[in-house]
């Protein structure tokens, strides 16, 4: 084949997002299926017979706020309102804590603005003792499960009542009682652990399942592959959620390979079923989670769900997205905002009004304000009370060994 030699100089493709600061984002080329068009296979469908779902987009709420198609979970009004409230509370909470960081009350904060449905709908579908393995962007799970927001704030402020005893970065919650696994600062690791947890549950003949989260960018970590491999091989009862919010700090999803093939399609090579879902559509996320949960509980194994959403704000308080994407890109995102869309659905159903919305918002602001006051009374990062320094040496092991005892003495406490 020497004839081909020197035929052409090779070159590399370095993916770039279509728009950068100063340019105007344009999502009109985005090929988004209409609400209601994707079929809903039976939960015992063979993965090979439903590969198309990895390439479409499961959507329930249409432009008019109507719930349409086979994926409509048919929720009652109370559930819809609970969903709306949870999402709004999460957003109000985020806004206050973000400001608190700006006020120097903590070192760091991360919002999930625009992605509330992705954590809250699944948390409402699953049993409370199903174990979630979240990233730092699923605070909505705790809120939906009724974990007290004062406790969450205590963690963020590393104050005297911080359930993590001042050891963890803000937003790195943990609550076994709420089926919320301790968040890791190291991306991806929890994806494999969730599969292990689910394997354990299955090995013990338990009925609890696991639900794992990973970001679009983090799918590139090895843990993503390990999780899918083990989940496929052992048919583990786990839901593998990929939150594709299209950005990983400053890198767009193309840097993780998401432009060429949807992340959901990664499932195909492991013989896992994949659903690709409009992550800003509370009902679609709800229904997809139901499907995956039923599958897992019926011993049919794992499901990969890609939640297609958009990170509407900066990565964290340390980030300025205006440095790498158009300022108005978030506004132009065509799949809208999950809170707006669920609100419109309730209005469409005649069960809600803009006034109700405003009243609820005001109520939640007040609730969060009161919680904030209470939490701050127990200290914030640089002021007021904090956990006892002694505890710094505890929980490294179940029991302190001589080194830790000596070191505590060395510190003079």
């Amino acid at each position: 084949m020497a004839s081909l030699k020197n035929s052409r100089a090779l070159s590399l493709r370095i993916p770039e997002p279509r728009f950068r600061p100063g340019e105007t984002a344009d999502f009109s080329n985005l090929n988004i299926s209409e609400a209601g068009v994707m079929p809903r296979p039976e939960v015992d469908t063979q993965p090979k017979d439903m590969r198309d779902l990895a390439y479409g987009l499961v959507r329930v709420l249409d432009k008019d706020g109507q719930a349409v198609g086979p994926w409509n979970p048919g929720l009652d009004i109370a559930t819809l309102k609970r969903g709306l409230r949870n999402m709004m509370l999460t957003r109000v909470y985020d806004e206050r804590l973000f400001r608190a960081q700006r006020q120097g009350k903590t070192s760091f904060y991360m919002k999930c603005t625009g992605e509330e449905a992705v954590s809250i709908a699944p948390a409402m579908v699953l049993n409370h003792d199903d174990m979630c393995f979240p990233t730092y962007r699923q605070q909505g799970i705790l809120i939906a499960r009724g974990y007290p927001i004062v406790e969450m704030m205590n963690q963020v402020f590393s104050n005297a009542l911080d359930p993590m005893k001042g050891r963890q970065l803000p937003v790195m919650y943990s609550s076994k009682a709420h089926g919320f696994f301790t968040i890791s600062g190291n991306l991806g690791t929890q994806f494999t652990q969730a599969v292990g947890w689910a394997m354990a549950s299955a090995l013990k003949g338990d009925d609890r399942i696991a639900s794992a989260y990973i970001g679009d960018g983090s799918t590139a970590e090895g843990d993503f592959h390990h999780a899918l491999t083990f989940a496929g091989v052992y048919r583990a009862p786990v839901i593998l959620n990929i939150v594709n919010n299209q950005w990983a700090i400053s890198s767009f999803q193309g840097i993780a390979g998401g432009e060429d093939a949807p992340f959901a399609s990664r499932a195909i090579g492991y013989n896992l079923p994949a659903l690709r879902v409009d992550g800003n559509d509370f009902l679609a996320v709800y229904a997809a989670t139901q499907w995956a949960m039923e599958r897992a509980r019926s011993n049919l194994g794992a499901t990969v769900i890609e939640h297609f959403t958009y990170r509407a704000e900066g990565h964290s308080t340390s980030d300025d997205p205006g440095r790498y994407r158009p300022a108005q890109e978030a506004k132009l995102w065509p799949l809208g905002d999950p809170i707006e869309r669920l609100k419109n659905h309730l209005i469409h159903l005649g069960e809600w009004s803009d006034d109700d919305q405003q009243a609820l918002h005001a109520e939640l602001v007040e609730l969060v304000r009161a919680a904030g006051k209470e939490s701050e009374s127990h200290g914030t990062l640089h002021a007021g009370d904090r956990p006892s320094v002694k505890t710094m040496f505890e929980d490294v092991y179940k029991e302190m060994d001589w080194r830790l005892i000596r070191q505590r003495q060395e510190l003079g406490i």
Partner: protein
Amino acid sequence: MNKPITKPTAATEAPETIKMNMIQAINSAMDVMLGRDPDVLVFGEDVGYFGGVFNATEGLQKKFGLNRCFDTPISEAGLIGTAVGMAAYGLRPCVEIQFADYIYPGYDQIVSEAARLRYRSAGDFWCPMTIRSPYGGGIFGGQTHSQSPEALFTHVAGIKTVIPSTPYDAKGLLIAAIEDDDPVVIFEPKRLYNGPFDGNPDNPVTPWQKIEGNDVPVGHYVVPLGKARIARAGNEVTVLAYGTMVHVAIASAETAGVDAEVVDLRTLSPVDIESITASVKKTGRCVIVHEATRTSGFGAELSALVQEACFYHLEAPIERVTGWDTPYPHAFEWEYFPGQKRIGAALKRVMEA
């Protein structure tokens, strides 16, 4: 799950013992624990039907079923990561990494996860996981079947690091590790699987079965983590060693004619500082021996600890006899391996200092 392990009732009569080689002792530890505790399970590459490339898990799948002992994909990060999840659920996974040289892909799951769960969740989650892995040289395994990476684990707060040197200890420490509520890494000196090794490749190896005093209880017992053992009592110099080097050190003391006290550390982290200090204060001299590369090896920590605790008792510089700062070279097994000649010379040097 994650419930306290039933402690053995105080033995009234001497337990039944038989002679086991180290592999059999390790196998017996897992056998005992699989039998006692339904939350214990064993998995890893080739450990199921086949019983492991060193036969450590032989017969366990047959006896306890697929659910208790099974093969995993070749993914050290995957098998350790899933074990972390299982341990967080409440099981006590005991996993095998086929060779210590292959533990690195799983290093992040060990260091950032297993070691951190309890601390970062303030005790909400913890990780009673045991990782077993054959390590060390002396078997012409070349650079990827001979490594001694223990120091990469002793530096990590939140895990315990254990290395046995006899079948009795291998079983008792492994049981202790499985029962421990924190993650434990046990490196097994593969050179010792079949019999003790004095460091001289020309000497025939006596199988453990023929070693006097090698009596291993068939049932449950524990060698506590964190406690060293005096492998050879002596007065002139303290040798700190673990794994294969315990036997090489004893032989070196004999051939060099130095009355060395050989301390078999058994647990490296947390190390038994009391036994070390007591011995060095008695002898006033210290030689540290390990197979791992010298720079930043565990010998460095031992040297620092001894110096800190026994400065005014030391009559000679502490010496380290270790593997060289190179990968482990296939053809130069005995030039790389710290043998009797090098250890003996160090013993004599510190005696003459």
